[in-house]
Structure formats: structure tokens, C-alpha cells
């Protein structure tokens, strides 16, 4: 498929559709692929395999002002939602992007292998659902599904919500999982248990801002937490409160716009399940204002900038119970 993709992109470039492509390039290892913008000459570096996890759509924002003509973008089914959302918010101009919807059967999370104690990884052979991992300390076999990125376990399906053409087959890797499982589990806890859960998680935060900077919804020119004039500028959490503040506000600012792409949790160096914050907003929105998927279409008006006269009152939160 990688070969087919490169050939097609080269053909498109020859036709003059675009001069550059946003995709992934090879890293030092087989797994550390890196988002890249490649010209026709660099096209051989393009990689598309089981390790192309990063959501590329946000990179298009910085490309927009530089563009003359179009750029080709490789967009996985899940990334297509982010792409649409960015178009809705006028951060990306649909007309300036030639979208190749690339097939995806789930991406592998090397950290999950490491968490199983498989370290010193030098190569992986993929054979259907079976992965053979070669390491400095011997070979191991694992089931592919078990080491997919968390976001792939709640896959939004194989459909590309936007594309100019599609290349490659996709597969829904969610296996029927309920993405709100953990949200519900947390909701079922007592307030004290929830408090302790989040304190445990958020106290790990080192405020590296990776979650924010990778997030396609967090696309502010200048974040409130970086802006000395907002009064809430903050570089490191000097108190527990500032950890809460940053993550609550971040989740709130992307509420209704978050496509649940899962990048925040993927990139967190401390493994904080940040997506559970965003997903809580999604669960509430679905529950209180009707099901809504950000980025499904270009031009949607999201629920947090919308209303109906019959909306529930904020007291619903108290009434749902489980507060003490």
C-alpha cells in the first residue's frame, strides 16, 4: 500500500495537483515514523504503515498561509473528523487541500509492548493478527489487537468523512467497545473516589503542553495559559489547583469541538488518560443535547455554541446524584 500511495502521489504531483504532501516519514527505527511534509524529490522517504499513528490534520494550519495551490494530505478515517472541524473553524481551507483518504486497520502502540516488558525492540513482523517482535533480548509474539493505540480501540469506523480519493482498505478496530465505558465507571464512583482518581492522574502532569500542542482543537494562536495578559498564564503547576485548572479549562475550550481523536492521551509522557475529560463532555453533550460528533461535516454548529429553549437546567448535575 505504501508503494501504491507513493506512486499515486507522484502521479498527482506530475499532474500539477500539488507540489508537496503531508504524510509520515521514516525514523531511525521501523516504528518512530515522523510527520513530514515532502516534496516530489523526498517522496521516497514517505512511509505508511502500522506506526503512522499521529493525526496530521493540525499541521495543515501552519501550511495554509504559505500555500500557493494545493497540498496533498494523507488523512486516516479518524483524522478526517479533525480535518472537517478545522475547516469548519476556517483554520484549514478545504479548497487548498487534496485529501487522500488512506486506509487504516489500526496503529500499533510501541509503548504497550514496552509495558509488557518487551524492550530493546529492533523489528516487528506483521502476519495478520500476529506480531512477532524481535528484541535485543530475543523474540516475542503478541496479538496485534492487544497492542493497538488506545484510540484505535474506540475506532470511529472505517469511513472517511472527507476525501478527494481513497487508497487502501480500512477496518473498524473498535470491536464493538463502548468508548464511554471508563467515563461511566468514573461517574459511578463516589465523588471522593473520583477526586482521588483524578488527583492521582493529574498530579503526574508536568505541564509539558504536549496534549494541548498536539490537539487539533487546541489551535489557538496564543493559548490563554501562555498569554501574560490573561491573568491565568501559567508555566508549571505550582499548586494542585493549577493542574486542575489547566485541564478543566483545556477540556472546556475544546468541548463541542473535540472529535475524540485521542491524541492528547497518546502523547502524554505521563500516560494521563486526558481523553476521559474530553469524553466526559462528549458524553454529557450526547446525553443532554442529543448525539453529536464533531467534524462529521464541515460547517456544523457545535452544541456549546448552540441552545434550545427546552435545554435542561444546570441543576441536572446535582439531580443525577452521586455527588457526595
Amino acid at each position, binding site marked *: 500500500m505504501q508503494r501504491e500511495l507513493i506512486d499515486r502521489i507522484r502521479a498527482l504531483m506530475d499532474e500539477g495537483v500539488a507540489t508537496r504532501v503531508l504524510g509520515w516519514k521514516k525514523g531511525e527505527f521501523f516504528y518512530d515514523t515522523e510527520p513530514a511534509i515532502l516534496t516530489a524529490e523526498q517522496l521516497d522517504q514517505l512511509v505508511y504503515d502500522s506506526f503512522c499513528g499521529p493525526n496530521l490534520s493540525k499541521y495543515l494550519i501552519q501550511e495554509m498561509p504559505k500555500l500557493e495551490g494545493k497540498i496533498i494530505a494523507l488523512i486516516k478515517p479518524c483524522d478526517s473528523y479533525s480535518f472537517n472541524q478545522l475547516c469548519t473553524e476556517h483554520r484549514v481551507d478545504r479548497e487548498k487541500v487534496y485529501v487522500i483518504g488512506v486506509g487504516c486497520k489500526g496503529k500499533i502502540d510501541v509503548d504497550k509492548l514496552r509495558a509488557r516488558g518487551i524492550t530493546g525492540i529492533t523489528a516487528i513482523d506483521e502476519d495478520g493478527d500476529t506480531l512477532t517482535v524481535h528484541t535485543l533480548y530475543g523474540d516475542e509474539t503478541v496479538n496485534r489487537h492487544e497492542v493497538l493505540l488506545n484510540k484505535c480501540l474506540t475506532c470511529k469506523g472505517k469511513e472517511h468523512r472527507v476525501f478527494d480519493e481513497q487508497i487502501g482498505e480500512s477496518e473498524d478496530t473498535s470491536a464493538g467497545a463502548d468508548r464511554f465505558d471508563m467515563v461511566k465507571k468514573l461517574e459511578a464512583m463516589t465523588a471522593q473516589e473520583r477526586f482521588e482518581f483524578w488527583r492521582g492522574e493529574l498530579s503526574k502532569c508536568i505541564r509539558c503542553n504536549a496534549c494541548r500542542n498536539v490537539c487539533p482543537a487546541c489551535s489557538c494562536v496564543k493559548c490563554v495559559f501562555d498569554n501574560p495578559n490573561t491573568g491565568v498564564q501559567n508555566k508549571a503547576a505550582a499548586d*494542585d*489547583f493549577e493542574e486542575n485548572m489547566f485541564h478543566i479549562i483545556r477540556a472546556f475550550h475544546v468541548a463541542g469541538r473535540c472529535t475524540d481523536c485521542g491524541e492528547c492521551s497518546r502523547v502524554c509522557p505521563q500516560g494521563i488518560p486526558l481523553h476521559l475529560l474530553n469524553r466526559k463532555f462528549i458524553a454529557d453533550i450526547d446525553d443532554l443535547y442529543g448525539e453529536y460528533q464533531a467534524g462529521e461535516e464541515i460547517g456544523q454548529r457545535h452544541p456549546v455554541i448552540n*441552545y434550545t429553549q427546552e435545554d435542561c437546567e444546570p441543576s441536572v448535575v446535582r439531580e443525577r446524584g452521586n455527588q457526595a
Partner: protein
Amino acid sequence: MSVNTEWKPKIVAFCCNWCSYAGADLAGSSRLSYPADVKIIRIPCSCRLNPLFILRAFQRGADGVILCGCHPGDCHYSTGNYYARRRMTLLFSMLSYLGIDSRRTRVEWVSAAEGPKFAATMNDFAKTITELGENVKLGDLRCKEN
């Protein structure tokens, strides 16, 4: 938590200028009392209330935050309180999800004519917050007076 008889809650009430602030004025001119722990901040409309302000209040030592605005349908700006309603619902839900007692936050619609309701709401909210005690989960230790 140790019971401190001296402890008085800090309560911030954000009131929209057109209905609830006027309702508070009416409560005042009707001599309807409510605890002095409640301090009012005037905002033009309930939709002006940024979640940042609520968190800021908790950071700085507030024990409860209440937003009062015009009744839905009566917003001076026609739709402001509808947006506020959604925002606050979602924010309060998130705070609760993080283990913050949802009784510490409240939204109440109080019209300019509802002086008694304003006073009753503040009495009730202050009572609830007094019962809940000091906000320790969402405060900033640095802001504690020492």
C-alpha cells in the same frame, strides 16, 4: 473536617445586570436579608460568566459560586442565558466528574421582580455551603491566609 465555629464561607454570586442584579437591589430595598458571606459581582449577562472566573474564585478561596441570570426566554440580550445554561451545565458536570461537590456551584434564574427569590436563593445557597464546609478540593494552598 474540624468544626470551626469561626469559619464563614466565602460565596461569590455573579449576577446579570438586567434581572438578577436588579433582583438583588429589590431584595435590598425590600430589606430581605441574606448572609453577608455572599458577595455580588455584576456582569452584563449570565453569558459573560467565563468558567475561568468560577475556577478563579475557587482558587482564591471561594467555597461556593452561584450564577444568577434572567429566566430563560427573558434575557435582555435574548439568548445569553441559553448559552450560559449549557456552559454551566457542562462545567458543573465536569467539576462533579473531578470529584468536586456539585452543590458548590449553582445557577438560579432570578428576575428583576424576584427580590424575595433572590434573598431566599442566597439564604439557601449559603446554608448549603456552610453545611458543606470549606472548599479544600479546588482551592489553591498559596491563597490561604496565614
